[in-house]
């Protein structure tokens, strides 16, 4: 497994086992995420991509295994350590998961309220900055989630996830349900922000274009564990039926061609 030069491990999973009743989702799952990289997690439906994200962020308690995030063992940490840890990561849920009774600006302000001594006026202006950083117009801050399109809700959800300048960002299907242009814009946004803010991104996706456009490394979930990790080039050489089918199917070829396109011209 090759790793980026700055191979400082930020998430370390060992022997994770998740099951619902008798249905085993993960068994003996190991995964490392390095600082500063964008890791894309792919897998067929029902392989537990979102469950893995929920496990790392503490929304789902695994039956067995060890989860270390930013050097803290999540499962044995006490309450205060966990709260401190949660402020160092941001999570964007599939449809933004904005609070429907608050407007976008107030949504982004919610995590900032935990900062002691932060002036409310200043908080509002910082929220405006985050809203603008994710590419939303200034007036979107006054709107309520129900008045926004799906793509705008996702952007607003990203702004809330970025409110406290997290080191680690979790994205659940960031481009699902967006039109191709909106999805491509979102890919560019994630890539740009993660580079300029020095974010580590854990990204669950189905979208081959997103993998091409943003991800440094890819982890494939299959057979209840992380089957293989590596760059896109490595993936193309993997000799596993599902992985081969996924990265060599007609959609994969199209995505590959469009990713290479601009460079050839």
């Amino acid at each position, binding site marked *: 497994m090759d790793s980026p030069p700055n191979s400082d491990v930020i998430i370390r999973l060992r022997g994770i086992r998740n099951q619902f009743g008798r249905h085993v989702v993960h068994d003996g799952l190991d995964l490392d995420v390095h600082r500063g990289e964008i890791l894309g997690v792919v897998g067929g439906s029902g392989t537990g991509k979102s469950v893995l994200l929920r496990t790392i962020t503490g929304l789902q308690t695994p039956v067995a295994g060890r989860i270390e995030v930013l050097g803290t063992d999540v499962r044995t940490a006490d309450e205060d350590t966990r709260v401190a840890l949660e402020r160092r990561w941001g999570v964007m849920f599939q449809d933004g998961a904005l609070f*429907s009774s608050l407007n976008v600006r107030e949504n982004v302000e919610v995590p*900032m309220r935990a*900062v*002691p*001594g*932060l*002036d409310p006026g*200043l908080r509002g*202006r*910082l929220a*405006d*900055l*985050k*809203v*603008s*950083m994710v590419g939303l*117009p*200034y*007036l979107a801050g*006054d709107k309520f989630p*129900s008045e926004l399109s799906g793509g705008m809700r996702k952007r607003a959800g990203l702004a809330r996830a*970025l409110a*406290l*300048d997290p080191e680690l960002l979790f994205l659940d299907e960031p481009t699902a349900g967006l039109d191709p242009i909106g999805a491509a814009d979102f890919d560019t946004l994630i890539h*740009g*922000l993660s*580079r*300029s*803010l*020095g974010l580590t991104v854990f990204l669950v996706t189905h979208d081959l274009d997103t993998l091409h456009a943003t991800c440094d490394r890819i982890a494939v979930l299959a057979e209840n564990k992380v089957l293989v990790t590596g760059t896109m080039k490595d993936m193309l050489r993997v000799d596993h039926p599902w992985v081969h089918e996924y990265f060599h199917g007609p959609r994969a070829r199209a995505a590959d061609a469009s990713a290479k396109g601009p460079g050839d011209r």
Partner: protein
Amino acid sequence: MTRVVLRGAFLIANVTKLEQRLGAIAATSPVQADLSAVGRIDTSAAWALATLQLRIEQAGQSFEVCGASDKVASLLRTVTDALPRIESQPPVRTSLRDRIETVGRAVTQAAQFVLDLIRYYGLFLSRLGRALRHPSEFRLTALVHHCEDVGLRAVPIVALMSFLIGVVLAFQGATQLRQFGAEVFVVDLLAISILRELGILLTSIVVAGRTASAYTAAIGSMKMREEIDAMRTLGLDPAMTLFVPRILALVLMLPILGLVADLMGLFGGGLMAWIDLGISPAMFTTRLVEGTDVSHVFVGMIKAPFFAVIIGIVGCHAGMQVKSNAESLGRMTSNAVVTAIFAVIVADAVFSIVFGQIGI
């Protein structure tokens, strides 16, 4: 020239102070910011620097950053590029005319709502007529299912409620009538109030709360998942398949529930009269049969089908108004209950006036 030197970490926790200090810098001379001793810095501190830069440059002075590491410079660039351009929304002014217009709109909306309910009533009648002509289109299974749900399952709550109402009525009546030595009239009081009014009215209110909300939720969630649209494209009529069995189930079951309520109310009242006033069950029955005309029962029961149609139509109509989000489902469900109860009480008042005028 003003030199600003930043040292140490600048994070969101101390940005309030940083913003105050930077805000105090006068924009009368060029500013140079020395960031060589900056440790960690986040977007909020970068924002404070970027707004300073904007202010200085707008005042026509130069702003220069020196000694920034690559990371800090990249962050600063990102934030500077993303600084929101503050736009102000055109202020909305409400003139007197607008306010009067709002009132007018509310009135027409209310009228539209009533017309809509009448339209649904017409729809129900026409589909009912169609079902009589083409019995094969009628959904008997659905009707039986809804009858069980609306009628049988509501019996315990309706029975308990009217029993307690009977008890309360007998108890309250007894204390008042005892002052005149007219305890025995408690029987008349109970019979007339429960049979004519309370039995059916309170049953209808319970059913409105229970069933109108259930209808709205069921039809509304079908609307939300586009099931209704799917039915239409398949040539199924939502009014025939969804409304007719539901409303008809209410029309059939509400009179029965009302009768249960009448019996339980009288039973509760009789029990209390026996315990509190010593009116024996035999005396109670005799007095009931002699003193109360059977027309009271009919006056009460005749209202049941009307109330049933009102509750059913309000519930189905509200369900069809649900939009594709969960908030509207919740809002329409509570609207349905409020509207159904209100409409039942209005109808009851109308019945009282009519019966009073024609002297029944």
